[in-house]
């Protein structure tokens, strides 16, 4: 069960309070009525599905009710950061430290 930091509640809370709502930073076209079939399929159906950092939306549905954005590594499931809706997409290096295993080595020689 994930532990998710809500940028509005400024606290880590249990995944049970949240709902995952898909890719972030997909903007509904203002002229949506005019866009092409291809553009519509792109907007409505095509989603990033990376093995690595994903920019995604969550809603703190059983908490403050806010939608917000998160950057998470889809293999380790570790969150790099969360930020409020409307804030710009952070420009992160593809491989960012938090997404990597902790730099801690065990007993094995």
């Amino acid at each position, binding site marked *: 069960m994930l532990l998710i930091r809500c940028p509005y509640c400024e606290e880590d809370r249990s995944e049970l309070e949240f709902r995952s709502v898909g890719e972030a930073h997909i903007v509904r076209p203002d002229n949506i009525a005019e866009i092409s079939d291809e553009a519509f399929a792109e907007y409505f*159906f095509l989603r990033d599905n990376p093995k690595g950092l994903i920019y995604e939306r969550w809603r703190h549905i059983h908490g403050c009710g806010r939608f917000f954005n998160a950057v998470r590594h889809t293999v380790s499931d570790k969150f790099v950061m969360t930020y409020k809706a409307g804030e710009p997409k952070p420009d992160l290096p593809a491989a960012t430290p938090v997404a990597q295993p902790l730099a801690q080595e065990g007993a094995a020689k």
Partner: protein
Amino acid sequence: MRKYSVFAVAREALRGHKGWEAQWTSPEPRKEYDVIIVGGGGHGLGAAYYLAKEHGITNVAVIEKGWLGGGNTGRNTTIIRSNYLYDESMGIYEHSLKLWENLSQELNYNVMYSPRGVMMLSHNVHDQQVFKRHIHANRLHGIDNEWLTPEQAKEFCPPLDISASARYPLNGAALQRRGGTARHDAVAWGYARAASDMGVHVIQNCEVTGIRRGPDGRVIGVETSRGFIGARKVGVSASGHNTQIMEMADVRVPLTSNPLQALVSEPMKPIFPCVVMSNTVHAYISQSDKGELVIGAGTDQFVSYSQTGGLQIITHTLDAICELFPIFRRVKMMRQWGGITDNTPDRSPIQSKTPVPGLYVNCGWGTGGFKATPGSAHLFAHLIARDAPHQHGAGFTLDRFRTGRLIDEAAAAAVAH
């Protein structure tokens, strides 16, 4: 290839089974193949088998990054059924079920297809309307699916609680008697052995790192962790990795990969004779030949390749199981695990040509992949060999998301795979 039979086993028994040869060979890759299949799961190995057997294309390699059947083939709850709603779905899943019925004999490998019946529980009027719609559609398509009263359901599956005091009392069930289960590993191994016997190369521990295209944009081969391997055609069937592999050829497919969990109980003497699914309370259960209760849990809703999942998903499934089968509350969970399901927007698969000539994709099977294995493999082989879809595969194009001609089993049926 040494034929498997009771006699062969008896003969070997007398000499310590020293005589068995490797079930499949692990050759060095050739410079070039007519067809390369990316992904050594049931679908990929099966496609290679049918390419060789039915289309005479034997210069084929199946390239697997890990070990054969190590993806969803070896991680699922092995439910087989074909009682879907839409013509396209009925076509492909029934095609598959017919192949399942003879697969052990076809491959000379016991895949333990066990048509013990798949029963879907109806808990309310809406369930009943949906299931009746399926039953009628299935009958007119030639697929068996029948309505049972709660008493008949109880008779078919004695552990079931049909008391009116249940939170969601049963008002009936839909039963496909030809549905059932099979032994997942055997499917991958059986296809690998039979394909290998016809000259197909099965190459494990070889990761595809790129798809090379010629000046005309056509596929000419794949880059791998063991170097470049040429191919005139490439079929991608690597559930859990399809997005990345297709992106190597600049093809975007509408997929999201989600964790799907399952668990088994400690083994017990036979107590559960069939497969039961309940969509209203989200539970899928059967009992393996070893005696373990095999229970399918739900998916986490976020994209993840972690092959794990939240404990809350497991407990949510188990409370439904214990609600339906109160005698199992003292039974113990022995092992839980996770797989990666590739889901499309309409929850139906994509088996299609792509904008890249010579590149074909088979993906998006969600939770329906195992039951479709032989059918999907057979149709995928046809698509690759003929560069045109088989009639049963024609609807599952990439294009449907542009036109809106979806095959929305989820929306229409509210029944999970």
